[in-house]
Structures are given as structure tokens and as C-alpha cells.
């Protein structure tokens, strides 16, 4: 059965600054708690979770104009998955980051969605650090 989960957070930094980190496929593990490594080769990204599980992903969209990143987990236990990160400029030097998860089975949407919620909190923390360069380099 199919399930969708959406989390969002407002960050007090310009959208371009936030997108520089959130839209960088190679640095997901800098701000997603529970992902300890990721490697990118073309449109294939392999993440490694804190439980030691490697998970291959396919990068579907990395649109610097819309500031939208979409990817798909490719593991046998997941029939369908699409993760979407949108960074939306609020025109006041802040932005809204929306992290959506669509998944079959739906239980995995909850599990992944819980991770994305923590990821947004961590992204906000890093981006709102005083004198932060926005490069996620504090990990």
C-alpha cells in the first residue's frame, strides 16, 4: 500500500544559500542524521545508513532553477519511492524547505519520513549557525 509523508521547515537564510547544500547530491550525509556516507556516480547515488545498510538511489531531478531535487530508492523491499526536496524562496531572505516522501510500502514512508523530519531540523540548525558559510562543513 502506498503512503505519502511531507515535512517542511522555514529557514532564516536565502534560498540560494540553503539550496547550495540541500541540492548537492554528494553532501546528503552532512545534514541527514542516520546517513553516514554517500557517493555519487552519474545519476546513481549510494547512501549508507547508520545501521550499516547500503541503499542505491537514482537521482531523477536536480533543477537549480526551481531548486528541486528528486530521487528514488532502489531496494528490493521498496516497490516505489520518490523523495522530493523543494527549497522555496519566501522573498524575505528566508526560505521554506519541503521534503516529501512517496513510498510503497507505506510503512517505509513513515520510516523515511521520520528521517527527513530530523534532516530538516539539522539543515536548519546548520544554516542558521552564526557566521555559517552554508557549506555543511561542520560534520
Amino acid at each position, binding site marked *: *500500500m502506498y503512503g505519502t509523508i511531507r515535512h517542511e521547515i522555514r529557514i532564516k537564510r536565502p534560498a540560494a544559500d540553503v539550496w547550495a547544500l540541500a541540492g548537492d547530491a554528494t553532501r546528503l550525509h552532512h545534514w541527514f542524521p542516520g546517513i553516514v556516507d554517500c557517493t555519487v556516480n552519474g545519476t546513481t547515488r549510494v547512501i549508507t545508513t547508520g*545501521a550499516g545498510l547500503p541503499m542505491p538511489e537514482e537521482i531523477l531531478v536536480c533543477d537549480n532553477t526551481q531548486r528541486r531535487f528528486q530521487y528514488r530508492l532502489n531496494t528490493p*523491499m521498496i516497490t516505489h519511492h520518490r523523495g522530493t526536496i523543494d527549497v522555496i524562496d519566501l522573498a524575505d531572505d528566508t526560505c521554506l524547505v519541503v521534503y516529501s516522501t512517496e513510498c510503497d510500502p*507505506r510503512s517505509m514512508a513513515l*520510516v523515511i519520513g*521520520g*528521517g527527513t523530519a530530523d534532516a530538516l531540523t539539522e539543515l536548519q540548525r546548520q544554516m542558521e549557525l552564526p557566521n555559517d558559510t552554508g557549506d555543511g562543513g561542520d560534520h
Partner: protein
Amino acid sequence: MGRRILFITTDQQRYDTLGCNGGTLARTPVVDALAADGIRYERAHPQSVVCMPSRSTMITGQHPSTHGVWMNGVPLPESAPSVAEVLRDSGYRTAIIGKPHFEPFLDPFGRFAENSFARNGTFGPHRGFEHFESATHGAMGPLHYARWLAATHPEAVGMFYPVLDHALEVNAMGGGDTGAPQAHVNTIPREWYHTDWVADRTISWLDSLPVDDDWFCWMSFPDPHHPWDPPAGEVGRINWRDVDLPAGYIEDRAERERVLDAKPRHYRAWYDGRLVSNYEAPLNWVPATLTPDQIREINALNAVECELIDEAIGRVLAAIATRGWTDDVDVVFTTDHGELQGDFGLMFKGPYHVDGLMRLPFIWRPAPSSTTPAAVVTKPVGHVDLAPTFCAIAGVEVPSWMEGKPLPVNDTDADARGFERVLTEWDSELFGVGVHLRTSTRDGWVCTTYLPGFAHDGSEGELYNMSDDPLQRVNRWDDPSLAAVRSDLLADLWDHQPTMVSPLPIVHAPV
């Protein structure tokens, strides 16, 4: 030296599964003896009828609205207060052995500390427990029992029933002789099964302590929660064909459905397979298909699991006696919530605040050295009172963040200290289906109001008179002659209902 505390919990065990509570199926002489020597509570209710919120109430002494674990899958923050921490700070040695479940089990990202210890080969500390050794219903998951079984008896890992199916939903697969959901022939030898493992590990930890130490040990059995897959070698204790149907089961289908129709609409919708409003029941199972023989078989297997727990407790108490501790050990026995187990033709659990899920086995055998007289308490108490009781036993001031009170030792004590009501909450929001209940049990009534949600418009409720309708077959919510009673109960409920933590914590997993 002070009084030591052995806190025993089981998972999803009904009140009427104990001999001391009138049960006739399982033989539970050890717990029955604790009840005879101690205090047996006849109206103890959980503050939630699912695991994570309920266990979070036990450790914090707070209602779910306050500690924030408002449904399964919401982790109890690591910063949450803990009675184990209070006791440890007071010089107690502390341990939890068995099923903790303060944090989600489904954790592929490895984000929760509870799941990290077995993976790392460590045993805490965590939440005030210096020793944290974990188990759950089978051989899967990042817990110590699963790792132990895989390392020492790998051939047994596949013997258990798979609690979740391939889609990570609660499994609907039938087994046993009758095809009952979550019934299974488990060929594992008894000594490898998690019930005996929990007792073995508890004895091992206790044996590691110097004899003069004070200690608080939470021994937490995963059974008799489904799956009903006790070791096959023990199943012959009870022939399911000889088992009577439970009093809560209505054999006449038309009458059963008439009773369900008089309850809020999600009862009948679930029964018919039109709405599974929560994760804790199999998504692909329809209660209306449940047969009398399936109920008999499940109840027999459940009773076998209860007997194994009773015998395991007996071994632990014997080990305590060997150390010379018995006179100074308080034993508290309860479970996190009940099981429908055939009541109204239903099985498992969910947003149904009826006795099958709410009435708890609940026993406190005070340390014999305290010379507390044996008693039966009929006044309402709850899990929220456990943590304050542990503080009182230890001679520690009850922290202000605890919302309960030390348990009464008899009805006179209960009256004197205002044990008038016990509150139970249900909240769940799962893929667009929200269900929200608030229940108060007082003055011989169980009163539940439904907040607006997916299946309810906010006008529904349940009102049962516990003295003239103990099986809760007649919902008197809309009885005009009881309008004043209902109004008073609701006013009292809302006067005492804690405010829900805000913002609402995020759900991180289904369970």
C-alpha cells in the same frame, strides 16, 4: 540497605489471564501468590492501549499528552524524565532487561539509541538504566536477544512467526490448526525462547550485584503479545479444543453485530474490513472472518505463553531468595495494555477503550519487611502511578514532573488520597486517518468521548456501567436518563485532562 524493586511487565496481557483475577485457562501460581501476599488492583488502567505511549508513561509517570509519545512510532525524547534516573541518582543499581520500546524498532537509519547497543555490543547506559539488554517478539531486529539467538542458535531464527509481512504491515498470515492470524507452530526449544532468555538475563544481572546493593530491575517480557508462537514443546499443556469461548465473545452473529453497531462506527467498520484505522492490527485481516475455533486456539496459545512467563518469574524469585533478598524486595507486576482476544468478535488492539484492552493485571507485593497487609484495591489506579510508587518504595521524594501518586495500599488509603479517576488517551494519525479518544474511568463508569477525526464527527462516545454491564455490551452514551451522568463525567474528564504537548512530536515509524 533499602528496599529493592523488581518491576515485571508483560506485553498485551489481559486482566483475566491470571488465576488471581478469575482466569481459569492459564495456571499462574507464582503471580497468584504475589497477589495473595500483596495488593491486587481490580481497576488498573493504562494511559494508552498501545506499547510505546504506555511504556513511556511507566518510565516518566506522565500521561501521553505530557510526555508526548502520543502514538506508536513517536520516540520518547532521550531528554525525557525517567524514574530509573531518579533511582540511580539515589544510589540504586538499575537495569531493564527485555522489551523496552521507548523508541521505534523499525530503524534502518540507526537513529535511535535503543537499537544501537546490541549492534555495538554494549548494554547502555540509557534513560537511567546502567544495564540495558533488549528483546522483542521474535528473532529479528537490532536487539540483544536477536543478536544472541543469531550468534548461538542461528537455526532457530527462522522458527518464529514473522510479525510483519513483506510490506512491513502487521502480518495477517494464519497458522496453527485453525488458520488463526498470528498463530504459529514454533519449533524452538523452550530454553532458547525469549521468555526464558529474559529471566536468564535478569538472574545473571542480579547475580552480578554485590549483596548489599539496592537495585531497581525492570524485567520486561515480550509475551503474551502476538504472534502466538510459544515453543511447540509446550503447546500441549492446553488443548485448544477444550477451551471455552471467552465471555466477551458473542456467539450469535446478529447479536454481535447489533452490539458493535451501537458503538462508535469505527468498531463495525473494522469488523467488516472497511477501515483499519491503526497500525497495530493486520491490514489484510477482517475480524468478521474470525471463527470460534480460531479464538479458542489463540486463547490456548496465549495461555501457554502466560504460563511460561509465570514459571520464568518463579525462577527469578527463587534466585532472589538465594541471594537472601526476598524480605526487602518489592515486586510489581503489570502489563502495558490488554488484548481484545475475541471480545465482540475482535482481536489485537486499536482505538477501543473497553476492558479487554484497558483492564490490566496489576499487582504489588510490597517487601515483606514492610509488613504491609494484603489487600484488594477496587479504586481506579493507573500506570501513571507506578513511577511515584517506585520513588516512595525507595524513600525518594516524588519529583514534581510525575503526574501520578504512590499506589494506595487499600481502598481506605485510596479514598483518603483521592484515587477517584484514571484517564486513558488515544491519538493516531496514519495516512490521513485520524482517531482521537479521551476516556475517564470513575464512579463505576467508563466514559469515552471521541474528538473529530476521519470516522467521527465529535459527537460520538461510549458510556458503560461497570457494575450492571461488565462486558460493556450496552453503550449508554445516548441514553437520555443518563445525560446528567455523562455530562458530569465529561466535565470531570476535561478538568483533569493534561494539555497535549505542542508542537505535536513527529511520527518516525509505524512502531
